[in-house]
């Protein structure tokens, strides 16, 4: 099968055609071959996007999302690979569950769904899950996380880091000191004091990151920090990298754009963990992506059925959907203000997350000979983000009604079209 993409701006730079043959990028330049044509005049060609952090809720939470509906959301957002967190029901702490999620992803067929294995059995933080067996399973797990919960026991964290090292695994930590955040629902601040909501202090994140950086150094293993949300965390990661520690870090689109002021009306839509923080944190996070302290943007796509958000703020579920809005928010918060170039988007949303997760085929963005995972974006488009752009099962997006730049027009996954003219191809 042959597809020719005509006249795309490669990584936002020179205009060229891309020839896709048998699922592989065969040629970039002036292509004279014949086949299916995609008119990409004015569109930017990016590598297929990779999200290291999504929640697809299956098994157990199918009223909010399934692997199939989550895959649709991912494709709509320009993604061709996602890493699905383990906090399902049952928890993905066994070969059976990670293989189930892997197989459901294959069946959906829109993106590569790579299961993340739990670090501890049932996410209970008491004993290690069968990390090695999950790594050897056909799900080929390389990322382990108790996300939703922190691996707070320092000995367990140390053992997990030691154990995954020989097979190139990485432990992705949801950094939240539990005793400092009991009942916490928002950033601890003057506003939390006024609203009478239990606060989630920055130190609860920062202290765990500092500890884990030192444990990664001690064990000579790799730690990845999920959803960094504070300026202090950025300083610690920067310090750890300067020291040569194998630490990587992610930031979510919502932490790059939104702040705690949105909580003044108690709207549970804005309830997320870690919480939305202050302007100074947002600026520090943007600068950290610019200088490489933060390696990647990951969505922490967390779908919830309506009823989980139509209740009091304290009672509501944490989380927001983010796959479909990720690229527009990155364009708005990082590219438009000049923190990074479009070509860097290929790094923070594709090659770097793939490298952290041990995913092959994404090493060099849009390289001849690589699998044809290609996202074509209209970066000149600017429009109000609406539910029509949401392709998953849940609508809990904090970006609805906000004007955002960029629209994904076409996506190729291993050479197959998964999105055409802005719509998911069934």
């Amino acid at each position, binding site marked *: 099968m042959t597809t020719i993409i005509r006249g795309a701006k490669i990584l936002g730079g020179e205009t060229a055609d891309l020839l896709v043959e048998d699922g592989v990028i065969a040629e970039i330049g002036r292509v004279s071959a014949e086949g299916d044509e995609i008119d990409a005049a004015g569109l930017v060609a990016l590598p297929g996007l990779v999200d290291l952090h999504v929640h697809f809720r299956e098994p157990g939470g199918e009223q909010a999302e399934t692997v199939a509906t989550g895959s649709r959301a991912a494709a709509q957002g320009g993604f061709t690979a996602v890493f699905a967190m383990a906090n399902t029901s049952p928890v993905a702490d066994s070969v059976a569950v990670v293989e189930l999620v892997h197989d459901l992803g294959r069946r959906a067929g829109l993106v590569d769904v790579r299961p993340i294995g739990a670090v501890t059995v049932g996410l209970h933080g008491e004993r290690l899950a069968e990390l090695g067996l999950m790594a050897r399973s056909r799900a080929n797990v390389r990322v382990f996380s108790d996300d939703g919960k922190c691996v707070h026991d320092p000995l367990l964290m140390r053992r997990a880091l030691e154990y995954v090292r020989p097979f190139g695994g990485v432990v992705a930590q949801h950094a939240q000191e539990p005793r400092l955040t*009991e009942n916490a629902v928002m950033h*601890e*601040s*003057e*506003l*939390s*004091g*006024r*609203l*009478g*909501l*239990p*606060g989630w202090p920055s130190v609860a994140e920062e202290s765990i990151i500092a500890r884990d950086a030192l444990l990664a150094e001690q064990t000579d293993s790799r730690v990845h920090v999920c959803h960094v949300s504070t300026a202090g965390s950025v300083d610690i990661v920067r310090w750890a990298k300067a020291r040569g520690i194998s630490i990587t870090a992610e930031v979510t689109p919502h932490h790059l754009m939104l702040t705690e002021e949105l909580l003044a*009306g*108690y*709207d549970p839509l804005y309830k997320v963990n870690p919480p939305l923080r202050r302007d100074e944190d947002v600026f520090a996070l943007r600068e950290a992506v610019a200088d490489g302290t933060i390696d990647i943007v990951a969505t922490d796509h967390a779908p919830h059925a309506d*009823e989980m958000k*139509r*209740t*009091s*703020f*304290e*009672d509501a579920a944490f989380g927001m959907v983010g796959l479909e809005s990720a690229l527009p928010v990155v364009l708005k918060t990082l590219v438009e203000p000049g923190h990074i170039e479009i070509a860097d988007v290929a790094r923070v949303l594709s090659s770097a997350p793939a490298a952290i997760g041990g995913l092959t085929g994404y090493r060099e963005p849009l390289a001849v000979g690589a699998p044809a995972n290609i996202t074509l974006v209209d970066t000149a488009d600017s429009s109000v983000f609406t539910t029509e752009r949401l392709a998953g099962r849940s609508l809990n997006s904090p970006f609805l009604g906000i004007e955002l730049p960029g629209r994904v027009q076409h996506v190729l996954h291993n050479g197959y079209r998964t999105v055409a003219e802005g719509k998911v191809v069934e």
Partner: protein
Amino acid sequence: MKHLLTGALRREDAISLLDAAEDMHEVQDRQLKKLPALRGRTVVNAFFENSTRTRSSFEIAGKWLSADVINVSGSASSVKKGESLRDTVLTLAAMGIDGIVMRHGDSGAAQLAADWLDVSFPSVRVINAGDGAHEHPTQALLDAFALRRRLFGAQSRGRGLDGVRIAIAGDIAHSRVARSNALLLPALGAEVTFVGPPTLLPPGADTWNTTVTTDFDAVLQQPLDALMMLRVQLERQRGAFVPSVGEYIVGWSLTDERRAKLDDDTVIMHPGPMNRGLEISSRAAEGLQSAVLEQVTSGVSLRMAVLYSLIAGEEPQ
């Protein structure tokens, strides 16, 4: 004012509510207490968190205004059965009620209820009877009412609390009473000081319109018109807020010794229910300076005034 959600009222609105409460207070001295003002109106007391005293106060206030008052308690409500708070609120409103008096254990619950109702049932009024650790505006209003009567007696009408010095002591961080008072009392011209253990002061309290300190004895050395003691909840001890009950008493309890040092005319207040011997001694609670029972009586008058001014003006549904 459509709903009463917060103590952050404009001075003139607060004073007109306090004055209306004066009218209601006179009715309480009559033998026949019922006024026909809310005949044919229905008020639901939706108490998702138990509070016998506040619920009874609203119930009596509603009945003395001839409203039909229906109590929905936490156990009887369907929230526990998986119905969302939003569904419960809208279901009650759909039955054709005029007002909902809402107590909920979560901060912001009354505000959300008002937001939902404004969309679907805009004639229904919401009165916040306490939301989590956030606010309890009728408590602050009745505190202001009781204090104004104590200080100015028959000359109360039309007045604020200008220059009145009030200290509020205890667990400020978890107190909705403290938050509503911190908004209302300064709006009436009062000077408010918060005092409590450093672990029980809310983050950012220094930005509120109050003075904040941890030194109770120093506060008591200054002239005070009123001292309000807040309830301390020992079940919060997993939060490690204070080392021991004994240490709390030494630092922040209104003991007999401390009471003896107060001016004779300093009014002692407590929103109840009291932990006698913990935040307040029995003698301090019951002495002539104590306004604790007046606060309870004032609560009915003030709540009558609130129900009347929010609901009576509207045509019945």
